[in-house]
């Protein structure tokens, strides 16, 4: 059996290996993805993001346990930062998901945010597709941090949960630009800490300014003590129902797929330049000239595009 057949048969190793192929952009992986794509689209993708230390993994653990009570098959992709200097990473999210580890209905995969050629969002998106084909009904996509790359990754999610904690102070102000918008549901974790209610109020105030049709809810939870996690899950479902009823589900997916296709086109073009000796050399020469101000980058890119057409 080839990898795809094994994947459809529910072979865990095949699923893991295909994700590796996606991550490493192994030759021929697109052929496999083509084969599985029509079988996907069944999973509901929940993005979880928020600043470091906000307890995302513990919260994911608790949400997953609730869904497991209903017998749902779950996939989790947890992304951690990669050192820009060594390319190494320590991926520690499994520590907080100890019990889920041996549950056969849960597949957990840790990913380094390493320099994927098509960007991190490309790799996570394809990994979601693999888990979808593997039969996961809910897929959690967890990223650490609140930067632009998280925004990109979260585009693949149907519902994005933004996790905050009390005591971030000015950080809320700092991250609101461009990032707060991606949250469809908000949680203030560690609700037993001082200032939890204030944090909720601040987020509420900020959300009140938004003119969007969907007004995200803000729920106080304690993942560690397993308090209000069930309510939070309901809020996530409310958003899902809203998407389904308003036809936004299709529109948002379409918009995201459009982005995905564009990303693939971009990646393909880059690969054609980088993986072709002749063109790579041309790129090198042009870069040399641009650096010396003999040529400019705009003309240089036109030259390369012309070359690709041949």
């Amino acid at each position, binding site marked *: 059996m080839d990898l795809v057949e094994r994947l459809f048969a529910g072979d865990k*190793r095949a699923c893991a290996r295909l*994700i590796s192929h996606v991550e490493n952009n192994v030759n021929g992986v697109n052929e496999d993805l083509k084969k599985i794509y029509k079988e996907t689209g069944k999973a509901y993708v929940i993005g979880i993001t928020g600043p470091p230390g906000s307890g995302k993994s513990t919260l994911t653990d608790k949400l997953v346990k609730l869904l497991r009570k209903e017998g749902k098959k779950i996939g989790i992709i947890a992304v951690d930062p990669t050192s820009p200097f060594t390319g*190494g990473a320590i*991926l520690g999210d499994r520590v907080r998901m100890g019990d889920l580890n041996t549950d056969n209905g849960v597949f957990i995969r840790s990913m*380094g945010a390493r320099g994927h050629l098509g960007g991190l969002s490309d790799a996570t998106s394809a990994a979601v597709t693999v888990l979808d084909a593997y039969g996961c009904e809910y897929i959690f996509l967890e990223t650490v941090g609140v930067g632009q790359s998280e925004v990109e990754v979260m585009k693949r999610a149907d519902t994005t949960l933004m996790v905050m904690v009390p005591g971030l102070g000015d950080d809320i102000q700092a991250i609101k630009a461009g990032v707060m918008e991606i949250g469809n549901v908000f949680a203030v974790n560690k609700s037993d800490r001082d200032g939890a209610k204030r944090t909720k109020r601040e987020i509420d105030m900020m959300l009140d300014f938004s003119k969007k049709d969907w007004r995200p809810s803000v729920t106080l939870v304690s993942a560690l003590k397993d308090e209000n996690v069930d309510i939070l899950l309901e809020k996530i479902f409310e958003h899902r129902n809203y998407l389904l009823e308003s036809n936004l589900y299709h529109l948002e997916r379409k918009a995201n797929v459009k982005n995905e296709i564009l990303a693939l086109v971009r990646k393909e073009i880059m690969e054609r330049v980088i993986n072709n000796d002749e063109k790579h050399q041309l790129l090198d020469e042009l870069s040399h000239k641009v650096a010396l101000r003999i040529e400019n980058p705009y003309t240089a890119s036109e030259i390369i595009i012309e070359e690709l057409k041949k």
Partner: protein
Amino acid sequence: MRPIRVLVAKPGLDGHDRGAKVIARALRDAGMEVIYTGLRQTVDQIVNAAIEEDVDCIAVSILSGAHNTLLPKIAERLKEENAEDILFVGGGVIPDDDIPFLKENGISAIFTPGTPTTVTIDYIKANVRK
């Protein structure tokens, strides 16, 4: 080039994780992706994590003296899962006379106290599946 992926785990009940954490950092600084699973990992947890994470190597640290019981069990479970291509190494307070037994039972290498992290790193680099 793709990074080598290593699962660093502590099997059994012993809570001394200084060695596991030092090696996790050293492997990261050598450019590897380290999946760290924390304390009190059962055989099933370790093998399952190794498979889901599609790691190239499992590195366990054990100081409680339970190595002769637990390490061969991990190797055995890997075999059952057709995953014995994953390099399996161990470290910790393990007497020299136990090492032949462990090697016969599926553990590729044992690193005892005082082994420089570079030795472990080089071993992993040289022996993971290509």
